[in-house]
């Protein structure tokens, strides 16, 4: 177990380093001068002032130096300065994290609450009409663009209830109800999508387990169907399900990007889109790195959980 963990940790670190290089390189080779971007809000380009700004921002140094400076600063918590805000990037990003985190957790909750039970039902009633209906329903969730679902929800509310959800962030202290709605609607839109994959994995994992001999033995022994399913099958099917939940959590950010935009929530994902459109490279670089860290950490967590739950790994090969 220990070697397994150490291995996974080592790989995680390597991956992070590799990603930092990729992210850094991608953005440096992008078309468009950083200085042009700064000038763009001035609607003005001046060759003489260009040199001064490049020096001020530290972008006249060779690329490799810039990279190592960035890494060193990143590790000490200095994420550089945003171009648009002229403020430390971390100060700009930090207030956004709780919003995205809350949305991510809520979405995962919706996904699990929706996906696991439907997967179980679908497996139990395999190949019946109910199974087909549920499978189509969940596949529809995978097919609909999350942002479209969000737009349709808002449109529905506006057209039929004549009610527009709050467009600016409402804290729970101000109004718990409005806050719940404000986060609940996008969580539904994103969660529905995630639930699809969870449902499919739950269903197929359960199906595979149910084919096993020992399940049939338990059945033959006469215990009621429900106890058989819950006690034996779920316990063994839980491994792949947990794995996919962990993966979905990390990849949720894709759905959050558009949903935060549509519902106007001041989160990390929405800000990423803005920063990309403004070409605010320090922000983009650091946000993408932040996302990478989250993804890799949660993959690591899933790996550890896997290692703990899978007896083959737990007790060594």
């Amino acid at each position, binding site marked *: 177990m220990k070697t397994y963990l150490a291995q996974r940790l080592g790989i995680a670190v390597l991956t992070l380093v590799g990603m930092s290089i990729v992210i850094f390189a991608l953005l440096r080779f992008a*078309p*468009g*001068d950083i200085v*042009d*971007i*700064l*000038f*763009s*809000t*001035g*609607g*003005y*380009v*001046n060759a003489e*002032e260009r040199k*001064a*700004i490049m020096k*001020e921002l530290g972008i006249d140094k060779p690329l490799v130096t810039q990279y190592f400076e960035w890494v060193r600063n990143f590790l000490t918590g200095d994420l550089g300065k945003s171009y*648009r*805000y*002229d*403020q430390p990037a971390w100060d*700009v990003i930090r*207030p*956004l994290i709780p919003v995205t985190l809350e949305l991510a957790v809520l979405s995962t909750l919706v996904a699990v609450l929706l996906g696991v039970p439907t997967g179980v039902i679908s497996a139990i009633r395999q190949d019946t009409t109910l199974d087909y209906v549920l499978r189509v329903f969940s596949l529809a969730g995978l097919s609909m663009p999350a942002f479209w679902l969000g737009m349709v929800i*808002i449109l529905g509310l*506006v057209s039929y209830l004549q*009610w*527009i959800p*709050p*467009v*600016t*962030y409402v804290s729970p202290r101000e109004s718990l109800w409005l806050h719940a709605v404000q986060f609940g609607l996008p969580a539904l839109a994103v969660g529905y999508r995630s639930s699809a994959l969870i449902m499919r994995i739950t269903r197929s994992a359960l199906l595979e387990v149910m084919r096993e001999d020992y399940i049939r033995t338990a059945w033959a022994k006469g215990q009621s169907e429900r106890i058989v399913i819950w006690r034996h099958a779920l316990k063994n099917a839980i491994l792949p399900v947990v794995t996919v939940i962990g993966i979905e959590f990390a990849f949720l950010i894709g759905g959050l990007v558009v949903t935060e*935009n*549509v519902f*106007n929530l*001041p989160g990390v994902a*929405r*800000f990423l889109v*803005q920063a990309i*459109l*403004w*070409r605010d490279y320090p922000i983009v670089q650091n946000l993408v790195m932040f996302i990478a860290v989250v993804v890799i950490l949660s993959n690591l967590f899933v790996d550890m959980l896997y290692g703990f739950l899978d007896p083959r790994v737990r007790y060594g090969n």
Partner: protein
Amino acid sequence: MRKPMLVTLAAGLAIAVVGGLALTPAIGQAPKSGGTLNIMAREDLAQGFATHETSTVATSTPSLPCFSNLVFFDPGKKTDSMDSIVGELAEKWSWQDNYKNLVFFLRKDVKWHDGKPFTSKDVKHTFDMVREAPDAPAKLRISPRKDWYANVEHIEAPDPYTVVFRLKRPQPSLLLMLASGYSPVYAAHVPPAAYRTGCIGTGPFKLKEWRKGEFIEYVKNPDFYVKGRPYLDGIRYVVIVERGTRTAALQSGQLDVAFPGETGRTAMEQLKKAVPTMVFQPVAQNVSDNIIMNTKKPPFDNPKVRLAVSYAIDRRGLIQAAHQGGAVLGAAMLPRPYGVWGMLEKDLAALPGYGKPEDMKAQAKKLLAEAGITAQSPLKVEMSVRAIAIYLDMASFVINELKQVGIESTLKQIETAQWHATATRGDYQIGANLTGLGTDDPDANFYENYACGSPRNYSQYCSEEVMRLFDRQSQELDVKKRTAMVIDIQKRLEQDAPRPILAQRLDYYAHWAHVKGLVAHNNVYNFSRFQDVWRDK
């Protein structure tokens, strides 16, 4: 007294009282103090409150409540002109030496938001910095409006409450430029970089909090130099990036006031239907749709081809298609009654693109044929455009029009962040552009957009003869003569067609009925201090 006289007197008194009572609503209710307003912001501040380092209304307008100018356009008057200029930090001013020296006598009771007193040193500091004077005490990172003050020889502050601008040659327009929303006064004791993250001004509101991406919150300045103002306790600019969401927020009352220039005709109709009591103030934005063409490269170095493009685009059709009627015909300067230097519709009717579409297109084809372009050998060009909806709508219509006269264009989207650099470098053939004028002044327009060597003269149009015309009108002191010169210049510019103007945008500036004392101007940059605005409930 005799009885009849008594009766007459009583009747007279009664009429006076009743008349007075009846007239009161027409004069207006008494302003109430208190309350806050939520105002729409269409994007977050770029470079914070550093108005002198940016050229975007996204920064200048939300910063207005924090700052004061030397002089400003009267907030209560819709049309900005030399006659509507009132003093803010300056109590009085006077031109001397035949419009070569401008003297300001400053108020003595003004304090900065951090308590320090305001003096002439702050004015000299600000404008020396903006014009990049050699002995300026501080430097801006960039100064986009440096050329507004190119004519300033020297700024003097002989005593703490007097400032003198000494010019190289007479320029009456300098006052107009100082009155623009783009000309606030910075504090000399605050480094200019600090304005990118916060705001120390002398304006009616103090900055309370700027939560990035969410809102900019102001509170009432208790030491404001105009006693009894502002009426409001606070204002909050709420950042909403999606257009549909913005309108929805206004509709549902989550916002009280729209952002200047953001209420198009369709939005207006939707809001009106949903909220019948919503107030709309149709004004011109002093933002024009235009086509820029690179005059230094083929095919648009040929003036006939440029003129053909201008003929081909049906102006009225554009106004209907791209603006749903929310725009007006106009050339380089804003037409009456929105501005004072524009051409009348009868003058415009003779310009290319303003006549009957079939005739105009026929004329365009004729011109193109002279340049060797026919339906058999069409011209293929790349139209550059910013990747924003309002630009794309205009471009889509124009592409369709050009197709009908034999010019095939493909769209090339340029990111907003690259637009100015690309256009300034001349890295394009033809482009769909929007131009906003900081102030309704011929000098600001001509020198910025049509003068040889100006970085925002994207077409790189350069005519010595026209430059001389610019200089002549700039020094003309008689307003009537000057207006006639300006109209002639506009005709000339449309004939040379480096930048054919397609339409002047309208804004249906929307706000809820409980917002009082708010007057929209025919210019998106010059109003929104909110110092005379109050809430009715």
